[in-house]
């Protein structure tokens, strides 16, 4: 069983190679990718259910026991996120052929896609700090590949900035690993967790922890390190934006959740309080950005940022409820961001423009798109009974219980402004007199809408059917809060 745990990482890697090798046989590759994605989604879902019921599976690569080898840890949190990743990815694969140019598909879209999935899954599952760096690089490299697929002026320009920011944070990552290794002499999460506790002089460790935080903060787009995000997420093809929006920043925030609940919890008064402040600023500046533009894609891209703020808020509050809130929100946000980027891609194709000022009455021709977008907006804003609401309740509960009133008010205010930014699209873009120049290719738009519909359906389920999901999230959060299970399952031999 413990060898199966590598498959979520290895299958996409192999698929990536196959897809790249046969990239010119486009039809074959498409079919291969879709089949592979669906099959591995089925497999991973099964594995996840198994782990939910039977407990964490730890794969020690090459049979070397932790902390000497690299542990791939299939704990419920990791598996939950890997499953979500694959869900969104699979949806993206069915969206891609309809929105990508042929050129872009043949130039290794599918190769990059699988590489991205492999990197993201690896980042979720690894139990080793340096290995996390490696998986970061894998997923970043894949994202670089995806972002340059447009290969136009703007794409390349924004890609350059994007690559630089990530490169710099990667370097900071290495330095942080160096610092941590110097103090603790290990890079294994579980062993780090054990050792960090018993370090005498913790000031230096806290400082290092904060530096490491910034590494993830750049990837996770936390204030004030998200400058690279909006434009980099706007210039690529919608399917790429969807993958980015749903997966990339989430890896950063996942790492924060993991590391600042497992390892650096020795001085929460400093680190986690810092998170709370940054969470507030992230939410505020994110929505401010979302309100600042008439580019519909950019509105969605900016909306990634406040969501990150919400998740960070949960880590900052550091209580079982708030962590559960962050995890729920994380899962929810992956799904809904994927959906929104799909839908907004469809909207841009349908309306023939990205500019809200030139858009109106789209719903009159494309009611399904309009209504799904409307529901997606509500989900995003955390309106009950959808998925965003569950996470929000938990986070607010956590915040209020700790009397962080300012934080709660900022969170609610930004929820309101998120709704405003989304409703602006609905009211000014979908409503109104039927505009000229709208696409009349109903079939195409319909096909572009379907993947979004599926994801929105999942998001609705995550809210309405929260009872099927939440107990797992609760146990995940308890595991995160009480670290012993993770540590013991990884270090069981020693």
């Amino acid at each position: 069983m413990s060898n199966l745990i590598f498959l979520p990482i290895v299958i996409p890697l192999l698929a990536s190679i196959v897809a790249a090798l046969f990239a010119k046989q486009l039809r074959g590759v498409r079919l291969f990718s879709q089949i592979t994605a669906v099959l591995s989604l089925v497999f991973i879902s099964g594995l996840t259910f198994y782990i939910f019921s039977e407990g964490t599976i730890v794969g020690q690569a090459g049979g070397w026991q932790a902390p000497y080898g690299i542990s791939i840890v299939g704990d419920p949190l990791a598996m939950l996120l890997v499953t979500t990743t694959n869900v969104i990815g699979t949806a993206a694969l069915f969206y891609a052929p309809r929105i990508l140019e042929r050129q872009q598909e043949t130039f290794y879209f599918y190769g990059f896609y699988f590489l991205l999935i492999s990197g993201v899954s690896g980042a979720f599952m690894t139990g080793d700090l340096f290995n996390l760096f490696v998986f970061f690089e894998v997923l970043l490299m894949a994202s670089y590949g995806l972002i340059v697929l447009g290969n136009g002026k703007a794409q390349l320009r924004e890609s350059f900035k994007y690559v630089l920011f990530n490169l710099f944070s990667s370097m900071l990552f290495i330095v942080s690993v160096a610092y941590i290794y110097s103090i603790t002499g290990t890079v294994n999460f579980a062993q780090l967790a054990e050792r960090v506790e018993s370090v005498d002089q913790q000031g230096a460790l806290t400082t290092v922890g904060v530096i490491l935080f910034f590494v993830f903060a750049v990837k996770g787009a936390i204030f004030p390190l998200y400058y690279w995000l909006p434009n980099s997420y706007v210039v690529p093809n919608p399917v790429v934006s969807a993958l980015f929006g749903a997966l990339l920043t989430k890896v950063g925030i996942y790492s924060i959740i993991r590391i600042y609940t497992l390892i650096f919890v020795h001085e929460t008064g400093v680190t986690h309080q810092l998170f709370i402040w940054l969470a507030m600023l992230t939410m505020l500046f994110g929505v401010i950005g979302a309100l600042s533009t008439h580019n519909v894609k950019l509105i969605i891209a900016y909306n990634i940022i406040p969501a990150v703020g919400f998740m960070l808020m949960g880590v900052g509050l550091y209580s079982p409820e708030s962590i559960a809130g962050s995890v729920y929100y994380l899962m929810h946000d992956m799904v809904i961001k994927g959906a929104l980027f799909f839908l907004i891609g469809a909207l841009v194709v349908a309306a023939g423009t990205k500019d809200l000022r030139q858009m109106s009455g789209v719903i009159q021709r494309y009611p399904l798109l309009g209504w799904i977008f409307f529901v997606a907006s509500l989900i995003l804003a955390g309106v009950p009974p959808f998925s965003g609401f569950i996470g929000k309740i938990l986070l607010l509960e956590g915040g209020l219980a700790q009397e962080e009133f300012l934080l709660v008010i900022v969170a609610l205010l930004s929820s309101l402004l998120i709704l405003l930014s989304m409703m602006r699209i609905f009211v000014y873009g979908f409503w109104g007199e039927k505009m000229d120049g709208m696409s009349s290719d109903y079939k195409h738009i319909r096909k572009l809408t379907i993947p979004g519909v599926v994801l929105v359906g999942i998001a609705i389920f995550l809210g309405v059917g929260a009872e099927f999901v939440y107990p797992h999230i609760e146990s995940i959060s308890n595991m995160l809060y009480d670290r012993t299970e993770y540590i013991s399952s990884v270090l069981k031999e020693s």
Partner: protein
Amino acid sequence: MEFILIGLASLLFGTGIYNLLQKQLLRIIIGTVLVSHGAHLFLLTMARVKTGAPPLISDASSYTDPLPQALILTAIVISFGVTSFLLVLAYRTYTLNKTDNMEEMRGREYE
């Protein structure tokens, strides 16, 4: 000796950052290269240097910590991959945008 090396690594970081803050594509990339050298050097230094024989099994009594070396090796190769990509990207960016000045590539048209 380690403190001198830490100083050098920090200097590499500093100079790298200074270059990163410039306008020309080339300088910016040079900056990333310097920063990555600095990062690798940190990894080397923080594991303590010269504490024994090279990590090759022989009859020596003590060896230098091999783990950081393995990590650096991975990091070097990865940096190389990314830098190569970045170089080609810079080249393409330059040829398409017809400038190597980043300040002329702000791209505000999306707002």
